[in-house]
């Protein structure tokens, strides 16, 4: 699972490509880096109840679907 992914930076993408080329299984759904997750921890509310339309919430749902869909 790729977490705290930075879409705009080059290195994270390169690292993921490297892992894949070495044959490591990497899920297609990346979880973006977000300050919202700190708020989520501080309020003791996971992302879905906290803000279901947030980008990270949607990514987490996509990750859930990838694992259980």
């Amino acid at each position, binding site marked *: 699972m790729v977490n705290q992914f930075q879409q705009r930076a080059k290195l994270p993408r390169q690292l993921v490509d490297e892992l894949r080329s070495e044959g490591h299984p990497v899920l297609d759904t990346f*979880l973006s880096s977000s300050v919202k997750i700190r708020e*989520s*921890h501080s309020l003791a509310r*996971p992302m879905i109840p906290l803000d279901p339309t947030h980008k990270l919430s949607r990514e987490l749902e996509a*990750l859930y679907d990838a694992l*259980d869909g």
Partner: protein
Amino acid sequence: MRRVVFNQKGGVGKSTIACNLAAISAARGRETVILDLDPKGNSSRYLLGDKAEEPGEDGAAFFGQMLSFSFREQPLEAFLRPTPFERLRILSSNPELDELESKLESRYKMMKLREVLQGLPDDTAVYIDPPGFRFLQPIGADRRTNRPDSLRVRRLPPAGALQSARERRRGEV
């Protein structure tokens, strides 16, 4: 459905991912249980807030009974706490888990966790947040049951242990 979110390095989002996947599972209508086996208790604090510190049934009580002789062990469900989120329950962490888990491990009682999970209803989703610095390693077969799907929890050697052993050998030569 059983999911373990694990990683060797700490602080990468293991508990965050486990809790959020569990919350999604519950929000979608599934009875869901998260086992916070990490003595640090990040998942417990994330889902219970300040209530995580309150005394009550938790992982230490659950594993404690495995180590003591008792005629009638309580099922896992007796140790789960509700969370503010519907259908989501948690086996809350406790700092004592660190010591308890080492004892369980050395007596090969960690295997019992598997039996315990099999005791939960099939339609209950289980998410496990294992302790850091350990590694859930699939082994070829459980020596006793000969089942290929068992997981064994083992402690990783401390960083540098292999290297220092090599250096020691070199010193002898």
